Each structure stands twice: as C-alpha cells, then as structure tokens.
C-alpha cells in the first residue's frame, strides 16, 4: 500500500466504483452552482441571456444537478461501505460499473437536451424525450426508466452482496430504504391532467424522498461512518439508527401534509400538516442532547479533521435549515402568505445544504483519505490545512448569506405581494420591484459567488490534500453485524 498518492490499490472493488460516483458528483456540484449563478444574475439583470438560456432552463439545471449530485454521492457512499459492511466482495461489480456509465451518459444526454432543445411542442413526445416540465422531476420519461433500471442494479448489488456476506442492522435498514426510494420514484412517472392529483403524487416523490428516505439513507451512511471514523460500537450505532428511523419516518411520512394545504386537497390536511410541522423540530432538538453527549464523551479526537468539520456543519445546517427555517413558515396560518415565495427558496437552500451537501462533502474527504493510503488528515496538515478551512468557511458563509438574503426577500414578498396586494400579477411585480427585494437579490448573487469560490477551493483541496503525507490515521475495525 502506497501512501500520500492517489492509488486505486488502496481501495477495495466497491470503493473503486464509489470514487467514480464521487467524481461525477463533484462535477455536478459545480454545475449546480454555475447554473444557480446564471439564474441569480437574471434576477438582477433580466436581459442576461434572454431568449438564449432563459431562467427556466438555468433554474431547471440548477435544481436537477443538485438532486443528481446528491444521489451520486449517496450511491457512492453505499458502494464505499458495502464490502466492509458485508464482509465480502461486491457481487455484481461489472454490472455496477456498467450501470454507472449508463447513468452518467444518460445524465449527460439529458443535460445537453435541456440546454439545446430546452422545450418542445405540447404533446407526449416532449414529455418523453425533452423535458417533463414538473419541478425537480423534469427528466424526460425515457430517463425515468433509465434511473429506475440503474437503481434496480444498485439495489441488486446491495441486497445480493449482503446476502452473500452478512446482514447487519445497517444492511437491513439500507436495503429496505432503497426499495422505498425506487418505489417512490415510480409515483412521479405518469401523466395527469388533474393538476391537484398531479401535485399530490409529485409531492410523494419530492417530500418522501427528501424528508424521509434520503434522511434514512444518510442515517445509514452516518452510522457506518461513526463506527469507522470515531470507533463507536455497532450495537449502539444500530440502536440509534433505529431510533432515528422511528423519528424520521414517524414525523416525515405524515409531515407530507404541509404540502397539501393549497393544491386543492381537503382541508383536514391543515390539521395533519400543522400538527407534524409543529412537532417536527422536537426530534431535532432532542438530537442536540445526543450530539452534546457524544461530543462530551468522545472529545471528538480523530484523524480526519475536514470530514469531522463537515459533519459538524451538517449538524448545525440541518438543525437551522430544517428545524428553524422550516418551522418559521410552515404553519398554515402563516404559510397562506409564505407559500410559493422566496421563503421557500431560503429554506430550501439552507436545508438541502445542511442536510445533504455537507454529508457528501464529508464523505469525499473520507474517500480521499483512504485513496491516498489511509493517511493522517488530523492536526498538522501542510499549510495548517488552510485550503479545507478556507473552503469550509467560504461555502458556509456563502450559503448562509444566500439564505439570509432570500429570507429578507421572502419576508418582503409575502408582505407586499401576498398580504397587501393579494397576489395579483401587479402585486407580484410590486413585491419584486421593492428596494428590499432588489437589494436582497444583489446580495444573493454576491454570496452565490462566494459559495462558488469556496467550492473551487474545495475541489482544489480534495485533489491535493495529503499529497506526500506519510503519517497513517488510526483505524477502527468495525465489529461484524
């Protein structure tokens, strides 16, 4: 085993596949930010790329790249842990590799079609081959089938590998969660003219992915990470994984109700959505206790400071984004005004970043550490680790800056457009033209640039961290399940 340089021999088969997923994830992360930036410029200068690359295209690429890079990160992380967790080699590594290339080529084609074809005539062909026109689920139908097929291969690899090796609590939760993940995607794969029913099922996919199955997937990845990075015992990690599943699904599944206030669905969803919205922060708050307990007992000593720092960023980001930002605007009494305004954008930026982007970045650092021969990434890094610290600071500052700018814009929009002007088109533009809103959009752009700068520094750091490092990190061998 060679240390200090990137060497595939340092990785097992699943991990070699995982780093491919991570590489594409990182590229798509940059794509997400680039197109977010274009859209942000258009808010400030509407003529920018008008009739060339319009806002709807940029915004679509912005959010779809986000969903896809996060999925790439999760799939990569699962392949990363699969061999160690199951105690055997990945059963279908060749087909897993094939699926990776199929998915990556498909994603590339979809993006090229988004950018060059953009829209089509109002018929079924457009929905099948250009774009489906439903926020987050824009991928044309042919690509939907591709995604389900690739998820099928992934599921097969996970289930078959655990079956041949050994099952564990993490393995069980992970496998069932992947069934739910693939199954829920199918809920978004049919056309309905009834827009109320259409959005009803659309939220099944979006909400139950993001606020339920993704959370549990990350829970599994984190559980494994805690055993390996901090050496926590399996029994404890798995107990807490089950506690987390109970809390996440217990609050998340019916928390779906807060999306059903205004789309034509019956008004009993006010009570269900309001109830779960009110109670949702309690598990998050309760988890603060566990974090303090763990930090106090373990003193957080480990050999991968960047990964640990990003996990801490996750704890805060998830709490603020989902807990505080969520609760501020989800009760129906206030959501009547905040629904469909920049409030949602503010919440979305912080929550997605805090809950998922941070975890994926932490995993990138774990991967680099092993890829270079399990080197020490603790204290005493070259240049005192200024690159990872700088990237951490810039990205967090950028996202928080955007979130606060959008919060101000959202407050102003809900007040002027929604409450004062009653949501007419004139009211909408009155809100958009208000100086607060305009300034907020300018600041959002500034912080978007800061975020992108941080991300570029992050990529540079990931490519160079630990070059020539010969100190080894301590290793925790997780007990068998």
């Amino acid at each position, binding site marked *: 085993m060679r240390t200090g340089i990137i060497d595939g021999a340092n990785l097992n088969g699943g991990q070699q596949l995982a780093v491919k997923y991570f590489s594409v994830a990182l590229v798509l992360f940059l794509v997400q930010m680039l197109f977010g930036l274009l859209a942000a410029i258009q808010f400030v200068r*509407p*003529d920018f790329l*008008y*009739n060339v690359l319009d*806002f*709807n*295209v940029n*915004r679509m690429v912005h959010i779809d790249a986000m969903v896809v890079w996060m999925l790439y990160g999760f799939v990569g992380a699962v392949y990363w842990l699969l061999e160690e967790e199951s105690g055997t080699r990945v059963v279908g590594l060749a087909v897993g590799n094939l699926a990776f290339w199929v998915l990556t080529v498909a994603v590339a084609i979809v993006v090229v079609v988004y950018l060059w074809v*953009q*829209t089509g*005539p*109002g018929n079924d062909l*457009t*929905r099948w081959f*250009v*774009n*489906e*026109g439903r*926020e987050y689920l824009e991928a044309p139908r042919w690509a939907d089938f591709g995604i389900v097929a690739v998820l099928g291969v992934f599921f097969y690899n996970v289930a078959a590998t655990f079956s041949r090796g050994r099952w564990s609590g993490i393995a069980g*939760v992970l496998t069932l969660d992947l069934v739910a993940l693939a199954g829920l995607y199918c809920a978004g794969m049919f*056309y309905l*003219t*009834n*827009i*109320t029913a259409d*959005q009803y099922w659309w939220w099944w996919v979006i909400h139950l992915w993001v606020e339920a199955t993704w959370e549990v997937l990350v829970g599994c990845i984190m559980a494994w990470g805690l055993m390996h990075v901090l050496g926590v015992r399996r*029994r404890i990690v*798995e*107990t807490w994984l*089950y506690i987390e*599943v*109970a809390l996440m*699904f217990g609050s998340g*599944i*019916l928390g779906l109700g807060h999306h*059903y*206030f*205004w*789309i*034509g*669905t*019956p008004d009993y969803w006010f009570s*269900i959505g309001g109830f779960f919205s009110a109670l949702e922060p309690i598990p998050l708050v309760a988890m603060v206790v566990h974090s303090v307990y763990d930090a106090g007992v373990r003193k957080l000593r480990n050999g991968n400071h960047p990964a640990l720092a990003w996990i801490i960023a996750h704890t805060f980001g998830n709490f603020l984004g989902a807990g505080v930002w969520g609760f501020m605007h989800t009760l129906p009494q206030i959501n*009547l*005004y905040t*629904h*469909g*305004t920049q409030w*949602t954008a503010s919440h979305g930026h912080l929550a997605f970043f805090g809950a998922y982007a941070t975890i994926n970045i932490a995993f990138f650092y774990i991967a680099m550490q092993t890829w270079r021969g399990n080197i020490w990434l603790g204290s005493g890094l070259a240049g005192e680790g200024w690159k990872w610290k700088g990237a951490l600071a810039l990205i967090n500052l950028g996202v928080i800056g955007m979130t606060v700018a959008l919060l101000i814009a959202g407050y102003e929009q809900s007040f002027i457009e*929604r409450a004062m*002007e*009653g*949501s*007419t*088109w*004139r009211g*909408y*533009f009155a809100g*958009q*033209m208000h100086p607060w809103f305009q300034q907020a959009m300018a600041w959002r752009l500034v912080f978007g640039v800061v975020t992108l700068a941080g991300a570029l520094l992050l990529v540079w750091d990931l490519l160079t961290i630990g070059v020539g490092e010969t100190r080894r990190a301590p290793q925790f061998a997780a007990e068998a399940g």
Partner: protein
Amino acid sequence: MGTSPPVWASESFWKKVAIWVTAGSFVILVILTFDTLSKTAVGGSRVQSYSVINRSIDYRFDYILNRYRPVFGGDEPLFGRSLSEDEAAALVTQGKKTVQAKNCMNCHTLLGNGAYYAPDLTKAWLDPDWGSVEEREARMLAFLLDPEKNAVTFSSGRKMPRLGITDAEAHAIVAFLKWMSAIDTNGFPTNFKTIGHQED
C-alpha cells in the same frame, strides 16, 4: 464486560418501534390518499369538471368558510364556443401538456408550487390586469403568442421568452388556466381582487 442496556434502550426494542411507526404512518397515509384522491377527482366540489370553462368563474370571500373560494356564474363559453365535457377535457389536457412541455413551472408557480421568477398562475385567468372580461381572452392569446412584444413587465424588465407556442397551444393554455382557476385551493391566494370584482 458491562451490563446490557434495559429493554427500552435496547436495539431489538427500537427495531420494533421503527418498523411499527413506519408501517403505521404509511398505512395512515395510504388511507388518506384514497380519501383525498376521491375528494379531488375531476367533477367534484374541489376540482371542477373540465366543462366549467363554459361558465363564468369568480373568486370571492366566503364569510361562512372565512376564506376565499371560487364561485360560478352563468354561461360564459371560452372563445365563444360551448364545449362538451369530452371536448373540454381534450382542450384542457392539451393545455396542461403544453404547460409542462414549455417548462412554465421553472419560472412560474402553479397552485403555489414551482419557481419564483414570474407570477403565480393559480388564478391567472382572474387577474385584473387583463383589462376587462371582454378583452381578456384576446389579450391572453396575444401575450402567449408573442410574449416579448405584449409583455407587461411593470417596469421590472422581466419578460417571458419566446417559447414557440402555437395558436392551438395558446388556446389550450388559456383553457387550462381557466379550469385551474376554478379549483378550490382552501383560500390560497387570499385577498385576491379578481377582474370581475374590479368592475363591481
């Protein structure tokens, strides 16, 4: 070796809790889904039949419900031609498909969901800035067919791009928007003064 955790803190206990909580929540969601889908079927009281586009639609405050809700008046056929339920369904369907094909949702919101670069379309049919009820259809068509020329940007500079919308698609979009404005959205948006209301 240490003592094992008590039952209420044990792995097997929480495994069962996780399974029961997940299964229970999901069963409740499935039951609610059946109920919601039956209550939001086209032709019910919340989501009107497609032929509602033959009637006049307004959106008024209901003092008993304490919220805004759609109200329906007499005949007001779209583009001057009364359609059968099937014809209306076909037209609204084409409109919905066009709205998806042109990726409207990544600038506009529909029922409040989508992007925030352009106004909400939920009650666009009822918007007072179409001038008058008489002018409305012609102005909507003109706008959809040449958004650049007919844009009303309220000096924001934000204009809808050229999307290659055909004449037939423009008619269909207007039908879809009219039908969508009839959905009972529990009072969202609130305080909306409609085109009809302005003339009262």
